[in-house]
């Protein structure tokens, strides 16, 4: 046997051993029609999974590591970070999750539940490791992590490990079937709030917005080149009460320009609820201001 073959065999055995150990870090969550998705054991009695893929039900049947049946109740959901938390009826062995930082080009071992108490595995690279980002539902995700692996639906929600055995986070589907990771840091930040309140409170105006260019003739009075056009207004929401209309172009909220949405998103954290906000906008060719009170976002 040459040295090279040895290395490859060692590499392979190491991966198999890691996968075997990882089966204790996952559960299968039963869905109707015999299907399942994967959950990641976060604490001995807490499992996290992909919010977008878990039906709106209060209780689920699980398959624990080793194959025994278990029930769990929803403890909280946060669509903005795609994290759902389930509380187990009986505790499992405590997981040992060591957070690890993603690095582009590093190996990623992606674990899923096979549905009968074991683990399925996929091997790939961290395709992209970028800075923090905002989801289209307004949540802050600590890092942009994209993997170059394919994933079956049943494997979504499992842990992703690096070569040191550190946990990068939870696997989930991004747009167009892309496999992305919700970082361990994000889960660590959201989980305690979900456990306490069952949800993540966020500020809310009740409008759907789309970025538009401010017409040339209005750029001078608007003092900016782009804004957010109101596409629809939720009936009875704070914006509707302030008289905001579809077609208005919002220029700033409390002095923060809507030129870059990321800055605006930061204004709508849980501490914004109940705060008065001045909205500067363009309506039928002139710049005006309305005042409203930020409410709490209704359950999605």
């Amino acid at each position, binding site marked *: 046997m040459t040295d090279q073959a040895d290395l490859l065999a060692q590499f392979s055995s190491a991966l198999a051993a890691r996968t075997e150990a990882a089966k204790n870090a996952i559960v299968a969550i039963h*869905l*109707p*029609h015999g*299907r399942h998705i994967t959950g990641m054991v976060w604490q001995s009695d807490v499992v996290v999974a*992909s919010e*977008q*893929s878990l*039906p*709106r039900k209060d209780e689920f049947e699980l398959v624990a590591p080793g194959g025994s049946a278990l029930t769990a109740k929803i403890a909280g959901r946060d669509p903005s970070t*795609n994290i759902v938390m389930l509380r187990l009826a009986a505790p499992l062995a405590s997981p040992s999750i060591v957070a690890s930082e993603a690095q582009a080009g590093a190996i990623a071992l992606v674990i899923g539940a096979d549905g009968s108490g074991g683990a399925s595995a996929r091997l790939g690279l961290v395709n992209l490791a970028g800075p923090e*980002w*905002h*989801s*289209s*539902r*307004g949540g802050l995700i600590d890092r*942009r992590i994209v993997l170059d692996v394919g994933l079956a639906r049943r494997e979504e929600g499992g842990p992703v490990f690096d070569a040191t055995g550190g946990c990068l986070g939870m696997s*989930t*589907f*991004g*747009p*167009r*079937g*892309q496999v*992305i990771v*919700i970082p361990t840091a994000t889960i660590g930040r959201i989980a305690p709030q979900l456990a306490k309140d069952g949800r993540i409170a966020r500020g*809310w*105006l*009740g*409008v*759907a*917005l*789309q*970025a*538009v*260019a*401010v*017409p040339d003739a209005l750029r001078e009075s608007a003092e900016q*080149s*782009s804004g*957010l*056009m109101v*596409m629809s207004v939720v009936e009875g929401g704070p914006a509707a009460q302030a008289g905001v209309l579809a*077609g208005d*172009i919002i220029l700033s909220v409390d002095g923060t320009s809507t*030129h*870059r*949405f*990321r800055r*605006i*998103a930061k204004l*709508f954290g849980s501490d914004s609820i109940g705060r008065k906000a001045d909205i500067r906008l363009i309506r039928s060719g002139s710049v005006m201001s309305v005042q409203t009170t930020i409410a709490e976002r209704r359950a999605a």
Partner: protein
Amino acid sequence: MRQAASQLAPAERLRVAVHAADVTRRSALSRVVAEAGHVVVGVEDAADVVLADGGLPPGETRPAVTLGGADRDLSGVLSRDAGANQIDAAIRAVAAGLIVRLPEATEGGFAAIGETDGHALLTPRELEVLGALAEGLTNKAIARRLNISLHTVKFHIESLFRKLGARTRTEAVAKASERRRYETINL
């Protein structure tokens, strides 16, 4: 033989149970079902398909089409404002054992807020022109509707093509709707 022929009959009459909490909604949906040539039956009766406004009643296991239902495991999911054609097509498809989804639902995935570069943002006027393009209006009809000159319409369309990176009107409409899907912000 006769059985095979009836299976191939293009407009099969199906028994459809209509479930809606709101009485007005229920009668409107029942009318749509009846006008599509199906038989409306009670929720407790034997039915080929259940048509539900919003979520399904608990324990319902028959093939179902819901309007605005969120459960990914339902056989058919349409939007709450689905038209009669969509409802009829979905009922037939679900009865035939198929799964019905809206295009945006299959796109899905947990996505980032999209941010188009400043210079590629559309103006409110360009959005109006785009809306008219999506309806299939000619340049002349767009000029009439927006009360602008034909020359100005052409100017806006050229600008739309450039900003969206499109070569045809259809492509412009498709690219703009893609953008809207990923870049709408709910605040």
